[in-house]
């Protein structure tokens, strides 16, 4: 590979991130107190750093053999779903209550990725039906059967 290909660049960035985490973990392990509690982390992080730097070096030299990276096309496809999932998990679930947030996120994701045309009334009906069914199962399983008390802000 003579030209810096996209996967190769990505590999350099990814393994660089892992190496940075490794260095940071090692730094903390060797500096934090009480030192006897960090004996094991020091051991792990030393091996971690060596392996991470090795991988990083291999990526820079273009010797990486496994992992295809993320194509632009795939990234564009996943971005909306990923963002919705992040908003749902890190904000919605707590702020709106589990069942409300899950119902909304479920329906939006379904509508977003369902190959059925968005123009048809019928396909929307189907989506509402699937969402209702899923929520029914979740409520039955977790709230009624297992009695898990999830955060409930809006509705139930």
């Amino acid at each position: 590979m003579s030209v810096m290909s996209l996967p190769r660049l990505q590999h350099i960035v990814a393994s660089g991130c892992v190496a940075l985490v490794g260095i940071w973990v090692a730094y903390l392990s060797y500096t934090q107190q009480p030192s006897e509690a960090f004996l094991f982390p020091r051991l792990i992080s030393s091996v971690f750093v060596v392996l991470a730097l090795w991988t990083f070096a291999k990526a820079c030299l273009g010797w990486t053999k496994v992992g295809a990276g993320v194509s632009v096309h795939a990234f564009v496809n996943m971005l909306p779903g990923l963002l919705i999932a992040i908003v749902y998990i890190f904000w919605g679930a707590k702020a709106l209550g589990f069942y409300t947030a899950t119902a909304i996120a479920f329906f939006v994701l379904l509508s977003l990725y369902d190959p059925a045309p968005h123009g048809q009334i019928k396909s929307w009906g189907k989506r509402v039906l699937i969402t209702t069914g899923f929520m029914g199962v979740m409520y039955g399983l977790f709230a009624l059967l297992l009695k898990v008390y999830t955060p409930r802000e809006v509705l139930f």
Partner: protein
Amino acid sequence: MEFIFYFGDVFTPVNFALLLVGTIGGLILGATPGLSPTMAVALLIPFTFQLEATQGLILLGAAYTSTVAGGAVSAILLKIPGAPANIATTLDGHTMAQNGQGTKALQLSFLSSAVGGIFGVMLLIFLTPVLAQWALAFGPSHLFWLAILGVTVIGTLDSKSVVKGLLSGCIGLWLATIGFDDIMGAQRFIFHDALGGGINIIAALIGLFAIPQVISMFAKGRRGDGAEVMQVQKHSVFEAIRVLFRFPRALGIGMSTGAIIGLIPGVGGQIAGLVAYDQTKKFSPEREKFGKGHPEGVVAAEAANNAMVGPSLVPLLTLSIPGSPTAAVLLGGLLIHGIFPGSDLFDNHPDVAWTFINSMLIGQVLMCLFGLYVAGVAARVAQVPQSVMAAVVLGLAVFGSYSVQSSMGDVYVMAALGIMMYFLERFGFSAAPLVLGLILGPIAEANFIQGSMIANATDGLGPYFLGGALNLFLIAVVIASVAYSAWMEVRNRRYLSKEEILV
């Protein structure tokens, strides 16, 4: 042979009904993401308050056996391992389901669970006194070496690159140190409140396996291809039995590994499946097929999981020491009826003891029959369109990880680890070694520290960790495992250098 006299007790109407409820309920609970066998059995304890001792234990025993097997269902169909025990099952099982062989995978998993499970309970029945001594033989130094043996497995487990496998393992080992350290009580790497309690293993499992899968489905975009057009192949039970016995090696390695590891208090069944999977892969002539939907992998992992159930109760029933968290919960089930495990149990309440053990035996068979019955239907989950599947798995992941200990922090950890894992996977890292590191880290660390404390008070580090037949044997196995991995790496490199393989 005493146990045969008590078989009749299992078949009284009430007892048998409880056995059925426990088995079917256990399968459902086991298949629920976030509900480990330990939690499932703990949930059932209040019901046993109302029952007689024998009946209560039948319910708990049946639930224990079938939750372990039930975990395979979500592992195969949704790629969410119900418990650490089912991690290895996802590796080949889920791939099989994606290829339309879900029925076959489920059938094989239930069959090998039953075969392994019955083997395990038989060991419990016949060899308990011998096994109890074996269980006690493992002290801190041995457990430390055992954990190290597990670490050496990391490199060869489900990874195309040994270095990246080891690096994934290191990340897992590090993640395991987050939180309060168990012995000193010092706080380590807590940079967010959600990490105060450390990383919960069940929540981490859900995140590391389920979330990358959800994101890959997103990445495919709005497409009609893939799952929709896929046919779920029909697969007869007899055919499945024939396939099962085509892999006697996998079955044998699975059962023996599961039974041996299940016996050791403190390690429990968490790593039995993974170690058995790795061993089977190393001994198999078709090792390159592993991880790509090879039935042998499912057989080895599930046989190991259920073979560990019987032996894991040996320390509890004979020595009154619960060897695993689930055994500890079962201990509670005995104590509320005033029955103390140990000689008291077998001498004064033989009806309770043997009915309990028999119910686990019958429970295995019932679990298998019921599982085989639903396998064909359950495998249709693979036909669910990707858009629906992604949303379902995401929802289940959130609810499942929350329900582990009613903690929002676990959900955040689950999601963060999951998103990280997706990108890592795209660059050749894999989840299985990472999880193995996460499981082994605390075992290795605690036993090393405890062992070195004992060693410092007695004969010093060297003799303590390196002396004794069992230590030497374990060290030899560790060396053999490392040498084997290195040899494989060299061989693979020769093979890889012919053409650049970018998977």
